[in-house]
C-alpha cells in the first residue's frame, strides 16, 4: 500500500489500471475480484495469434477429473500456477452472500498441517506468493515461486486447497477485516457506482451482489457453512489447473502425484446456478457525496461469454469506447471536449450473463453534458455504419496486441484457465484472428442495434448532487 503512493506519484497520461490501483490500496481481497474482471475484459477476447507467437499448451484430464494445462516456458526460473474452481458466488445461497469469497480467503488462514502464520512465513521466506480469491463464476487459487522452490510451492498450494481447517479465530479476524473493508470502500466513488449498477442490472441474481457479501450476510456465515461449501465445491472435477513456467510436463506430473494424490472425485458438482431475470426499464440511481467529480456509470445487461455475437460485440465496443485513445468516446469527450480524464465502455461477459457499461468521471457541473454525449455516441453507432478504417484499425489492434496482453507467465496461466472454463476450445488461439477478422461493418451495426439500448438503461451518478443538478430527462 505504501508504494501505491509512489506509483501514483508517477503521473500518467492515462491509467488503464486506475481502478485496480485504488482497489489495491484498500484491501487485498478486492484485488483479485477486480483482476478477474480485467482478465475477462482484456485477456479472453484477445488473440494468441501473431506471426511470431504461439503457445504450446499440453492439456489432459486426470483420473480424478482435474483438467491440467501446461505451458513450458524457460525464459525465467519461475513457475506460476493458477487453479480455477467452480466455487464462486454463483453457488452460494443469497442469505449467505460472501460465503464463496470467505471460503477462498480463508484457505491460507490455517490447514490441518499448518497455522496461518506458518503458511505466510514459509511462502514469504522464499519470496513467493500463494493464495486464493473469490469470483463470480469461479474462484482462483494461485501460486508464484522460483523454480528452486517449486516443491514447497506445490506443498503449500495443495495444502490450502485440500486441507483448510477454518479455525474459528481466523474466521472472526477475516470477517472483521472484510467488514472494515466494506466501510473503507465507501470512500471510493468508483466502487459505490459499480456496486449500485450491478445491483440494478442483476437484481437478486448472484451477479448483482457484492462478492464479499454484506455486513449482515457475512455475520450469518458459520464455520459449518464454510466446511460444507469447501467439501461440496472444491473437488477436482470442478477444477482447472494451469501451470506455466520453467518446468516440464513430467516434473508436474510427479508433483501432482506427490501432493494432489488424495484429491478425489466427489461424484457431484453442485447445484445449477439460478436464471437471470432481466427487466427492461430505465433506472436512475443518485448518491450524494462530498465529491468534486460525478462518477457515472451508464449501461445495462450485456451478453454472456458463449454468445456467438461476442466477437462482433468486441469489435463494436472497441470502436465505441473500448479502444483507449482510439475510441470514439475518448476522442469526443476527452480529446475534443476536455470533460474527462478517463472514459471507457466495456462488455463484461460471464458464464450466464454480462453487462455493458460506460464509465466516466467529470466535474459535478459537467455531469449532464457528459451523459448527453455518451448517449449521442451510443445512438450514433446504432444508426450509422462504422467506417472501413475504424473496422480495420479495430481488427489490427485486437488481433495484433495479444503478446502484450499476456506477456508474463502469470497472465498466461490466468488466460488458460478462462479459455478452459468458458469452453472456448483448444484451438481458440488459432481461431481467434478469424473470429475477429470475419466481423463486418454490417455485423457491427447489427450488434450495436441489438445490444446497446439508449432508452432502457441504468444510470448511476455518485456526486455532489446539488452541483451536478441532474436533468429530469435522465432521472
Amino acid at each position, binding site marked *: 500500500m505504501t508504494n501505491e503512493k509512489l506509483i501514483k506519484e508517477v503521473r500518467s497520461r492515462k491509467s488503464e489500471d486506475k481502478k485496480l490501483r485504488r482497489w489495491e490500496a484498500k484491501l487485498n481481497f478486492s484485488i483479485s475480484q477486480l483482476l478477474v474482471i480485467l482478465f475477462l475484459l482484456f485477456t479472453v477476447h484477445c488473440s494468441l495469434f501473431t506471426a511470431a507467437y504461439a503457445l504450446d499448451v499440453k492439456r489432459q484430464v486426470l483420473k480424478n477429473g482435474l483438467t491440467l494445462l501446461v505451458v513450458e516456458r524457460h525464459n525465467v526460473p519461475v513457475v506460476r500456477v493458477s487453479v480455477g474452481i467452480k466455487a464462486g458466488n454463483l453457488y452460494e445461497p443469497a442469505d449467505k452472500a460472501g460465503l464463496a469469497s470467505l471460503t477462498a480467503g480463508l484457505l491460507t488462514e490455517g490447514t490441518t498441517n499448518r497455522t496461518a502464520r506458518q503458511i505466510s512465513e514459509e511462502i514469504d*521466506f*522464499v519470496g513467493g506468493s500463494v493464495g486464493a480469491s473469490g469470483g463470480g463464476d469461479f474462484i482462483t487459487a494461485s501460486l508464484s515461486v522460483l523454480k528452486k522452490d517449486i516443491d514447497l510451492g506445490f506443498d503449500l498450494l495443495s495444502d490450502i486447497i485440500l486441507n483448510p481447517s477454518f479455525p474459528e479465530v481466523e474466521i472472526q479476524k477475516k470477517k472483521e477485516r472484510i467488514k472494515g473493508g466494506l466501510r473503507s470502500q465507501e470512500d471510493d466513488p468508483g466502487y459505490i457506482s459499480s456496486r449500485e449498477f450491478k445491483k440494478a442490472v442483476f437484481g437478486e441474481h448472484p451477479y448483482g451482489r457484492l462478492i464479499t457479501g454484506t455486513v449482515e450476510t457475512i455475520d450469518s456465515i458459520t464455520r459449518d457453512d464454510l466446511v460444507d461449501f469447501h467439501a461440496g465445491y472444491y473437488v477436482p472435477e470442478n477444477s482447472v489447473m494451469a501451470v506455466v513456467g520453467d518446468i516440464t510436463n513430467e516434473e508436474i506430473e510427479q508433483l501432482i502425484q506427490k501432493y494432489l494424490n488424495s484429491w478425489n472425485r466427489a461424484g457431484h458438482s453442485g447445484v445449477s446456478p439460478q436464471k437471470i431475470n432481466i427487466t427492461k426499464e430505465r433506472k436512475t440511481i443518485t448518491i450524494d457525496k462530498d465529491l468534486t467529480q460525478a462518477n457515472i456509470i451508464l449501461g445495462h445487461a450485456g451478453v454472456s461469454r458463449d454468445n456467438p455475437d461476442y466477437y462482433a460485440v468486441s469489435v463494436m465496443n472497441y470502436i465505441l469506447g473500448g479502444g483507449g485513445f482510439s475510441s470514439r468516446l475518448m476522442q469526443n469527450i476527452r480529446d475534443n471536449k476536455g470533460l474527462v480524464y478517463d472514459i471507457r465502455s466495456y462488455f463484461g461477459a460471464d458464464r450466464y450473463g454480462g453487462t455493458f457499461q460506460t464509465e466516466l468521471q467529470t466535474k459535478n457541473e459537467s455531469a449532464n453534458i457528459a451523459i448527453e454525449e455518451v448517449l449521442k455516441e451510443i445512438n450514433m453507432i446504432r444508426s450509422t455504419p462504422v467506417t472501413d478504417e475504424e473496422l480495420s484499425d479495430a481488427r489490427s489492434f485486437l488481433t495484433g496486441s495479444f503478446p502484450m496482453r499476456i506477456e508474463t507467465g502469470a497472465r498466461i496461466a490466468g488466460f488458460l484457465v478462462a479459455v478452459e472454463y468458458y469452453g472456448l476450445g483448444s484451438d481458440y488461439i488459432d481461431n481467434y484472428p478469424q473470429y475477429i477478422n470475419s466481423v463486418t461493418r454490417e455485423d457491427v451495426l447489427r450488434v450495436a442495434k441489438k445490444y446497446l439500448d439508449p432508452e432502457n438503461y441504468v444510470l448511476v451518478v455518485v456526486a455532489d448532487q446539488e452541483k451536478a443538478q441532474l436533468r429530469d430527462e435522465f432521472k
Partner: protein
Amino acid sequence: MNRKLITYIKVVLLVAVVYGCAHTGAETAMQTAPLENGSVYEETLENGLRVFIIKDRNAPMAVFEIWYNAGSINEQVGKTGLSHVLEHMMFKGTPRYGNKVFSKIISKSGGIDNAGTSRDFAYYFQKLAPDRIRISIEMEADRMRNLIMDNGDFLSERDVVMEERRMRYEDDPQNLVFEEVLATAFKNHPYRWPVIGWMEDLKNLTRDELMDYYRTYYIPNNAFIVIAGNVDVEGVMEKIKTEFGPIQKGPEPRKLNIQEPVQRGEKRIYIKKEAELPYVISAYKAPNVLDEDSYALDVLAGVLSGGKSGRIYRGLVDEKRIALSAGAGYSNFNKYPFLFYLEGTPLPGGKIEEVELALYEEVQKIKDEPPSEREVQKAKNQIEADFIMGQDSVYSQAMVLAQFEMLGGWRLKDKYIEGLRKVAPDDVQRVARKYLVDDQRTVGTLIPVKKDESGK
C-alpha cells in the same frame, strides 16, 4: 497487505540485475557479432542522446522507451504541474503525422503506448512487435522537436488534467493527506510540489510557458532511449541514427543543486474530509539508492512490511487486531533524498492514535534489538525473487535500467545488489536509529467529517 504491491517498486528497480551480464560499452559499438542474450548494448550519438538496448531473445514483443530529465523538480514556483501537462501535450501531434494520432497509429499497429511524469523525469513508451519498433523511433524523434502545441488543444488538455487532479486527489482523502505531508516535510526542496500541480497553478499555465519548457528540456542531450526485446540491434541502432541523429544538441539545462535544511522537530498536519475511516502516514527523510545506507533501509522496510509475516501486519492487523491495513515503505528511487514511511488505517471503531503508536512501537523494537538473521534473509529473498520474476517482462527490464541511468548510470544496479547482499541485522538496527528519528518526521492524519463539515 498485499506483498506484490508493497514490493512493486523493488521489482521495478531490481529487474535487470541478474541478466545484465555481458555489458557492451560504447567503444565496442561497431561490433558485428551477435549479442549475447540479456546483454546491454550501449551507444551515445554525437548530439548526446544515449541509447541502451537490452536483447531478450525469448520475448514475443519489444518495448521502446524515451526518458527526459524533466520532472516536476525542474518547475518554478507558481508553475507546478507544467512537466505533466507537457507530457499530455506530447500526444497532440506534429505537422508530419497530424493532430492527435500518435496513440491511434500505435494501436492500429497492434501496440500499446503511454507515458508518465515523476518528480525527477518524464518518460514515454510503446509496446510493439519487435519488427515495428521503427514506428516508435520515427514518431518519437519527430515529437522531440516538432510539437504543434495548438492553444485550443492546450486549453482543452489542461481541463483534462484538472479532471485527473480531481479524481486522484480532491476526491481521494488518503492521497490528499499524502500530498499535504510532502508539502510539509520539504520546506525548500521542490519535492514539496505535487507532480500533478496545484489546481490554482494549473489554471494559470499558458501554452507559451509549456513551449519554453519543451524547447529547453526536450533535447537529445537531456534524454536517453531504452529498448528491450528480441530486436535486431544493428538495424535498430541504424534507424535511431537516421531519425534522431540530425536533431541538434541543445544548451545544457540548468543543473539543480538543492539541499533540504535539517528538520528540528516533528511536524503535524491534518486533513478534514468526508471519509469513513481515519488514516495516518508518518514520513521520515531518508537517502536515495546511491547512499550506502539505502540497502539496509530497504531490508528494514521488508522486515516491517514484507508480506503477512512482516512485523507490522503481524503485530497490528493479526495480533492486536487494531488495524484494517498497515505497512511501511521506503522510496529510494529519487535523485535527492526522499522518504521512508509508516502508515495505517484502524478497523471501524478503532482509534487512529492507537494505530500510530503501534507503528512506532514496531520501529522501537528494532531500535532496541536487531531483527533476526532469518527476517533479514527473508527480506533479501523477497527482493531477489521479485527481481527475477520481473525479468518475465521486457517493460520491467527497461524500467530498471532506465531508473538507474536516471540516477547516474545503469551499472549502479550491480553495486545495489552487492550492497543489498551484505546487509546484516545490525545494519538494519543502525539505520532505524539513524533515520527513523521522532524529531525528523512529518505526520499526516485524515480526520473523517460529515459532508457539510469538510474543511474547504
